[in-house]
């Protein structure tokens, strides 16, 4: 056991820290989930890419630094620590890219990954449908075979930043006689074409970053089938496993949030909440430890597997506890949104709390995660 970073890991950390300190925008950008803010965030993403910090763990030929998993975690810690903007590219670089690395052809990697790392093309995930949420296998969107590819029909919903992105990835029924998990295909759909209608949907925090995507004969070339026709379920499960397990919510995010909470407590101390603030800090540290344990296991040849579900339950519930504690510290000021003359920290805590509330819902509800753990880890009967 050696829980210190190696010398080269420390050098990597110092490099990342120095670059971020010199380059992170001094004034926060507008929300990346608003149209105006999204454009500002894309500019930031291009700057990250130009300095080769946008996708550190990828091979250099796709814009990365060939960083190890540990270095990736270090970068994430430094990124959040620096207060850098949220990653509007995250549903591409963290969720789609691992699937392309695993299932994509060389042609797909060469074509899609560089444009993703440079934020030339941004991707949104399109899993949910009006009739398919936690029960993803009940998707109704389908694809019909045509010359050179597929025409897609149906409706996707709750597509984060779908109104601003260039493409979506999701599951489509390609075998009309199939049921449930069979006969589905993982397709990449260009949004900038006839047959696609994107309608923004406001979230509870007022941002229009959700979208409904209506597909009526949009074309998907064969080159945009990922992992083989009718193999979509297996391919999609690899994405959802990386989403829950490692890449979606790295520890750095919560360590930063916990440090901000401690800072808030020191400005507005309330002895009755001291233990809860302490616990939020401990939970973030614990999540970091758990992640380093997982990463070590992966480096030593193991897999994430259904553990990723335990992970997802932990961070999503931790995030709510943390932000609830902040709101209690703020008391009557908790309701004040940014721009209010008396808002504390520009009203960020309420936005953070609203965002945290979505955690137990997206990426597979926590109830579904518990079912997965019950079946696959505890081997309980159906």
């Amino acid at each position, binding site marked *: *056991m*050696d*829980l*210190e*970073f*190696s010398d080269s*890991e420390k050098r990597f950390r110092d490099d990342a820290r120095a670059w971020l300190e010199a380059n992170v925008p001094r004034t926060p950008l507008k929300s990346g989930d608003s149209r105006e803010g999204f454009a500002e965030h894309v500019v930031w993403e291009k700057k990250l890419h130009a300095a080769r910090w946008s996708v550190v763990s990828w091979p250099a030929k796709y814009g990365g630094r060939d960083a190890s998993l*540990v270095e990736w975690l270090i970068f994430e*810690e430094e990124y959040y620590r620096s207060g850098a903007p949220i990653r509007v590219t995250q549903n591409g670089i963290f969720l789609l890219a691992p699937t392309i690395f695993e299932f994509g052809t060389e042609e797909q990697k060469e074509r899609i990954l560089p444009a993703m790392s440079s934020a030339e093309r941004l991707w949104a995930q399109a899993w949910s449908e009006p009739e398919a949420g936690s029960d993803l296998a009940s998707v109704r969107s389908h694809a019909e075979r045509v010359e050179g590819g597929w025409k897609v029909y149906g409706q996707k919903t709750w597509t984060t930043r779908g109104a601003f992105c260039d493409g979506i990835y999701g599951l489509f029924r390609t075998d009309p006689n199939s049921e449930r998990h069979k006969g589905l295909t993982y397709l990449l759909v260009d949004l900038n074409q006839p047959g696609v209608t994107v309608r923004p949907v406001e979230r509870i925090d007022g941002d229009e970053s959700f979208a409904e995507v209506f597909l009526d004969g949009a074309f998907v070339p064969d080159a945009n089938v990922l992992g083989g026709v009718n193999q979509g379920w297996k391919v999609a499960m690899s994405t959802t496993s990386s989403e829950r397990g490692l890449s979606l919510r790295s520890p750095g995010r919560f*360590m930063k949030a916990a440090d901000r909470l*401690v800072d808030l*407590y*020191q400005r507005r101390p309330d002895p009755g909440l*001291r*233990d809860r*603030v*302490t*616990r939020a*800090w*401990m939970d973030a*540290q*614990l*999540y*970091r*430890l*758990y992640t*380093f*344990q997982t*990463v*070590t*296991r992966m*480096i*030593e040849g193991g897999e994430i597997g259904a*553990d990723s579900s*335990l992970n997802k*339950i*932990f961070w999503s519930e931790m995030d709510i506890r943390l932000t609830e504690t902040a709101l209690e510290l703020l008391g009557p000021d908790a309701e004040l949104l940014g721009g209010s003359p008396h808002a504390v920290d520009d009203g960020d805590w309420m936005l953070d709390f609203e965002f945290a509330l979505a955690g137990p819902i997206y990426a597979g509800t926590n*109830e579904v995660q*518990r*079912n997965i*753990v*019950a079946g696959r*880890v*505890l*081997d*309980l*009967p*159906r």
Partner: protein
Amino acid sequence: MRFSFTEEQRQMRDALRSSLTESCPSGRVRAAWKTPDAALRTELAEQGILAINLPEDAGGLGLGAQDWVLLAEELGLVAAPVNLIETLATNPTLAAIGALDLASQVGTGAEYVALEEPGGYALDADKAAGILAVRDGRVGWLRDATLVAQTSVDGTRRPFKVDGRFEAVDADATELLDRAALAAAAELVGLSRRMLDLAVEYSKSRRQFGKPIGSFQAVQHHLVDALQRIAFAAPAVYRAAWSVDTNHPNRSVHVSMAKVYASEAALFTGRKALQVHGAIGYTFEYDLHMWMKRAWTLSSAWGDVRHHTDRVGQFVMSGGQDA
């Protein structure tokens, strides 16, 4: 960065597991409620476990917390009726004060050194060659001690209120108590794992409404929530072992985190396991209560959740940084 045990450490764990599976079934724990189990210390001594963290010139293996933490977890798994926490905690202290003869006797199982839990009790003090205690932040022997026997809810534990002439020695009190809290945390993880196993197995065999109760989501989610707490407590405990061995500047914070999460995991798992078992789990005849009661006692001993949360809080609120 490498957060895993070595092959040797895992092999030692596996060896102890197979020997305890054989030698320490639940019937032996139950028997220790009536008659203290003196033989178990000898058996552990024969496997070198009582001397694991003694220096070689005291007949020990010269190993550290990373080597014993999994072993303490194994003892928790079988709810072994033996005071290993005291021995793991006091061994390096005995070595530090030069009491090598006594230390080697402890290592062979011939003698036992008791350790008073601060503000609490000393187990088996009547059989001890000496009683170590921490008073006002200093370590010392309690000489000419008076002992008042108590009865614990866990019938395998024999606590004594002890008092006596305090004879200070030159040893680090925080290190001593950190080792005790870490060993307790490790046992708590083992206790939790077994309580969860019992509940999972029971839920697969017990049928109601024509199905195993383990097929009902309400029952499944109890068990998953317990598993999650155990799965997250374990790395806190393992990290603290590394911090003890490396004398990390934040060692005490790490030990406190270990004890908080392990205590909560054990209390929570006990409650969930009892609920899943229903009335059978509430009987004296069924094994669960022996694990649950050990969990109650160890979660409050060597600093409870409040104590250790407060210790982390002092660090965090004074601007302490980790990682």
